[in-house]
């Protein structure tokens, strides 16, 4: 048997029995994939790009969903979503898990970037009344949502359901489209004070319900 033939006959066996290093790498990846969000952000802060890869895979649908809902443009949404993950990578070291969960932190980064892109285009691409996510009676369970997250979403949705529609619209215009109270007053043809009151009443109501002060 030639040397070449001998080596070739070994190859399938090498494929079937991975060496310890490959097993270790796979186990390490499984550990990273199962890590908490906060652990992944800590890994990103230390420069571990595998933590970043797991973080991107876990949250890409949420981040892209926010960017798409606000910008209503898939190409712009992809740019916004990529920039959001890049910002998360850059600022991972200053993330404070005591202040907010990592998902809220990432969602806020994404929302702010999407709003910035809207401001630069000076446009609100869709009518706030038409936003699909304003359909708060939608009880569809998102397939990949964690049970804990789905519960949190349902609590926010239930809270928002109690808010009168004019207040809800003011919340949507400001929270998701970055409109100022002055812009809302113009768009809704109401006095500035009324626009501010709607925001305050709506936001306070949601806050009180979520904190259990009001049922």
């Amino acid at each position, binding site marked *: 048997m030639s040397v070449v033939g001998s080596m070739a006959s070994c190859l399938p066996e090498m494929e079937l029995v991975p060496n310890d290093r490959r097993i270790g790498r796979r186990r390490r990846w499984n550990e990273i994939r199962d890590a908490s969000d906060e652990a992944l952000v800590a890994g990103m802060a230390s420069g571990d790009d595998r933590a970043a890869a797991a973080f*991107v895979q876990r949250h890409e649908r949420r981040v892209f969903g926010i960017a798409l809902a606000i910008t209503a443009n*898939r190409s712009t949404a992809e740019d916004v979503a990529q920039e959001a*993950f*890049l910002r998360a990578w850059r600022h991972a070291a200053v993330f404070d898990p005591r202040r907010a969960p990592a998902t809220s932190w990432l969602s806020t980064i994404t929302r702010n970037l999407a709003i910035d892109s809207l401001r630069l285009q000076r446009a609100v691409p869709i009518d706030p009344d038409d936003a699909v996510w304003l359909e708060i009676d939608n009880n569809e369970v998102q397939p990949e949502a964690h049970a804990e997250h789905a519960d949190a979403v349902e609590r926010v949705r239930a809270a928002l359901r109690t808010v009168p529609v004019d207040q809800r619209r003011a919340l949507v215009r400001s929270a998701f489209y970055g409109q100022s109270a002055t812009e809302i007053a113009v768009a809704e043809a109401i006095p500035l004070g009324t626009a501010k009151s709607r925001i*305050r009443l709506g936001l306070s109501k949601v806050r009180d319900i979520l904190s259990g002060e009001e049922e």
Partner: protein
Amino acid sequence: MEPTSRGSDCDALHDDLAVLAIGALTGHDRARVLAHLEGCPPCAAELEELAATADGLTALIPEATPPEGFSDRAMAMIRAEHSAPHRPFVRRLAAVAAVVALLALGGGVGAIVSSTGHDAPATAVRSAPLHSTSGAEGTVLLVSTGQKGWLVMTLHDAPTSGTVTCTLALADGTHRAIGAFSLATGYGSWTARIPVPVSSVRWVDVVNDSGTTVASARIG
């Protein structure tokens, strides 16, 4: 529940605190509330609660599946930044690029002047979208700081992979190839010094190995 130590000043700002929390307070009103918050811990605590509530509304937005290859492209950007040298100028350039990339999302050619600090020279930036007939899209930024000029380019959805060349068409009718970069699954991001004044650049072209123009941006 209202904190007991809040006073009449606090009551006067009642609406504005919530409006600030959701990011909708501007101008004089915003300055007034921020000044009040400096000396009023109860209002600062109230603001934090309301801001957390406003952030929580984002959870209602449904998830959506991004385009194929999204996570690979996002990781390419992260790894590019991870491996890049972190010289102060590169960081300043990245900050300017991030702002102008968003500006460029609106389409058309834009120009801004930005100052990156009280002791830094003004940075003039021109941005333009890259277009093609093949579906490739991207953004070109030309940044001039003093005598130096830089080009920052991102390209995606190009129907090609491998090495491409960046060529400048100048106001005097000449062309200048300034370097080559690689596209992975149609995506590439690249930064380079440019050897000519930014004001002389009219077109930026991306050309593949066989000499075909993959994408072009009209600068001025």
